[in-house]
């Protein structure tokens, strides 16, 4: 079996879908952040696979680097927000953060 572009795209699709389900179903705020990381990783797999198998070339690697850096920045800010949420509510359950419900 020769490994081609579609195999890598399938891995990326699985990681993307599990990340979306993780974001939607977890009630722990840190679990939601882990879902975001999975989604960004699925996108990165696709970028690097297209860089290898199509004419995207080195641009795919550069975009993957930017995604990694922005994911790290996002994790830092989201963790600070989660800590503030925990200080105010004494829980990390995102279902409790419903003060803004109309």
């Amino acid at each position, binding site marked *: 079996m020769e*490994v081609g572009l579609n195999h890598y795209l399938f891995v990326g699709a*699985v990681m993307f879908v599990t990340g979306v389900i993780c974001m939607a179903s977890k009630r722990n705020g840190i679990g939601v952040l882990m879902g975001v990381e*999975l989604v960004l990783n699925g996108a990165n797999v696709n970028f690097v696979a297209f860089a290898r198998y199509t004419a995207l070339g080195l641009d795919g690697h550069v975009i*993957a680097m930017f995604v990694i850096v922005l994911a790290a920045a996002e*994790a830092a800010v989201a963790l600070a*927000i989660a800590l503030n949420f925990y200080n105010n509510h004494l*829980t990390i359950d995102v279902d409790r953060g419903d003060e803004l419900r109309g």
Partner: protein
Amino acid sequence: MSAEQIHSGLFALFAIIACGAAIAVVMSQNIVRMAFWLVMSLGATAGLFFLLDADFVGATQLLVYVGGTVVLLIFGVMLTASGPYIRIRMSPAEGVLAGGIGILFLAMVYSTVGAVNWENVSSAASPSGLGAGVSEGFNASSQGNTTRPLGLAFIGLRPDRDLGADIHSPLSTGYLLPFEIVSVHLLVVLIGAAYLARAKRRSDTVEE
């Protein structure tokens, strides 16, 4: 054993670890085990990057993601997991619903992606337009490593593309400006995160 068989075997190993650990992140109810499965998934993804000849991106994935971001998440778990909240369960009915929706969503995404013949798309895009300068794509395995071309791309030089071929293109193919924006963005984000997460004195204790 040929190199292609080794490549296929390693791809199967890393792909199964990456997908299985990603599914285990969703299935697991314990937040600490979720962090462990996330490390497995991200590490196997770095292995996939190495298989795709992206050595610098794979090394960065290991250093920044597995070494930095996950440690940050684990510190978040340690600071917020108190007593009853270390495992917040969802009901079995919600789990079945999430699994069904996930399988349907995966079928939709992969049938959409798999319906496109990517070889035709890439060859149709390259003779004219933005891909004009690409000679034969980027073949990292014949050029050794990707560290030097990546570094040159970040300071705005693209030796892997013939910039004279698409001189009428308004887009620059270097990445100096996005690199500077991202570096300033990272500095602002770290200052902002430290400001947001600093230990605040509660207002009610101050008044006493």
